[in-house]
């Protein structure tokens, strides 16, 4: 199959996702309200309670709002990844997912395109958040606005792939709400999004390891370092490995022969 065919297909899927995004303005605003509430209320309340020592990539003491900003950026992507998956479960239940799956273009490519389309939407949300967050004094170096982009792409892919895998494993839309509670909240709270890992280690060693091996921590830390134009190879490699694992699982999940669709009778 010619490369141009793949390109047209990719463009079509991204455009469709973008159009849906434009048509569903409330989705954009709700995606922004959530992290802004955390930033404006939660962080304001906890800034006097939680002190943050100087830890890389920061070179000085920072207010708590600055510390949790990368976690909230990752939160936007986490919710976006789960929301895309939710729409996949919905599309599958409503039937429109079938339109995509019966395309002659290989299924792995269709799923990757859908994933990229979701990442594209999440990046728009993140930049909108960064603009509003600057009102709270969260102003990274100018270069950070550019260097964050690769980290956003990879973390968006990882979280989207995780959501896609979950969507392949979920039979009905109602079950997805439960998975959201069992995935989103544990992932978010058991990570370095709200408190540094060394603080968690001081409290509980086993929790530290849970947080350390949580894929979401890798997303948060990759975003944190890249926002200050730095690279942390440990987190960078980790996030790529998690992305490959989740992507592989989701492709298997949607494989007509081996995946979860087969087990469930395509429903």
């Amino acid at each position, binding site marked *: *199959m*010619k490369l*141009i*065919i*793949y390109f*047209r*297909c990719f*463009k*079509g*899927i991204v*455009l*469709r996702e973008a*159009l*849906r995004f434009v*048509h*569903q303005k409330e989705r954009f605003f709700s995606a922004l309200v959530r992290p802004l509430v955390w930033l404006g209320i939660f962080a304001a309340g906890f800034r006097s309670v939680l002190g943050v020592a100087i830890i890389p990539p920061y070179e000085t003491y920072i207010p708590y709002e600055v510390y949790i900003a990368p976690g909230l950026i990752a939160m936007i992507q986490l919710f976006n990844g789960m929301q895309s998956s939710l729409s996949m479960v919905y599309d599958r239940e*409503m*039937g*429109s997912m*079938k*339109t*995509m*799956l*019966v*395309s*002659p*273009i*290989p299924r792995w490519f*269709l799923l990757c395109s859908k994933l990229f389309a979701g990442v594209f939407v999440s990046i728009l949300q993140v930049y909108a958040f960064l603009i509003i967050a600057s009102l709270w004094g969260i102003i990274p170096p100018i270069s950070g606005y550019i260097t964050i982009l690769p980290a956003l792409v990879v973390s968006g892919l990882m979280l989207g792939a995780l959501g896609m895998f979950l969507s392949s494993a979920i039979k009905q839309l109602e079950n997805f709400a439960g998975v959201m509670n069992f995935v989103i909240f544990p992932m978010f709270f058991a990570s370095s999004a709200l408190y540094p890992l060394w603080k968690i280690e001081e409290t509980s060693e086993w929790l530290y390891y849970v947080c350390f091996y949580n894929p979401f921590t890798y997303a948060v830390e990759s975003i944190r370092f890249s926002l200050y134009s730095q690279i942390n190879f440990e987190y960078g490699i980790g996030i790529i490995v998690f992305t490959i694992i989740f992507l592989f699982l989701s492709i298997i999940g949607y494989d*007509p*022969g081996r995946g979860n*669709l*087969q*087990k469930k*009778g*395509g429903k």
Partner: protein
Amino acid sequence: MHAALEIKNVTHKFGEFKALDKVSIIINPGDFTVLLGLNGAGKTTLYSLITRLYNNNTGSIKIHNFNVRENSSNALKNIGVVFQQPTLDLDLSVEENLHYHSALHGISKVDASLRISEEIGRIELNEKLKSKVRSLSGGQRRRVEIARSLLHRPKLLLLDEPTVGLDIGSRQMILKHVKSLCKKGDLAVLWATHLIDEIDKGEKVVIIHDGKIIESGDVSKVIKKTKQKNIREAFNKLVGIKT
């Protein structure tokens, strides 16, 4: 010439449940064939296997001699599908939906625009091109789905209970339109339904019940073979419905 659709000895299970049992069907180019069966007979499962939503456990399915499992890309290129459930994106316009489908088949934007204009003209919905799908009636949505399924110029059109839930006027219009497509070219159609009044004499029928093909052939031959007056009575006799 290859058969438009050749299904040989397909058996499919979901766990212990046998949804299809040694199903074999041949449809030639230009044929309009009705797949008749009650709800739960296995029609949708069969369609899901033909379109490779999931793989058949045994047997083979070929579309214009391309095996769906081994050469799915070439096989799927030749299929147009109208699923039982509506599959249009309600928040997008008719045109956006059709462009999306064209992209999924790798059709260029220029070609897609030409084809959309041609297909939308055939179903007489030109004035609805920019309308949101949400604003369309059930019958109009179905017609758009048929137009969409033909955009990539398939050689086999699969329709899974396309008229369910529609009023009689829309049902007749859609049926007439699809039959006319068969007559014009060598497009083969497999029309799944449980509505017996959608079958005319002179057409081909495949009767499926409990996952098995229990009769197939020309409608008149099926009537004759079962020694009944019409296809309704023949069907009732074959599936054991007492009237």
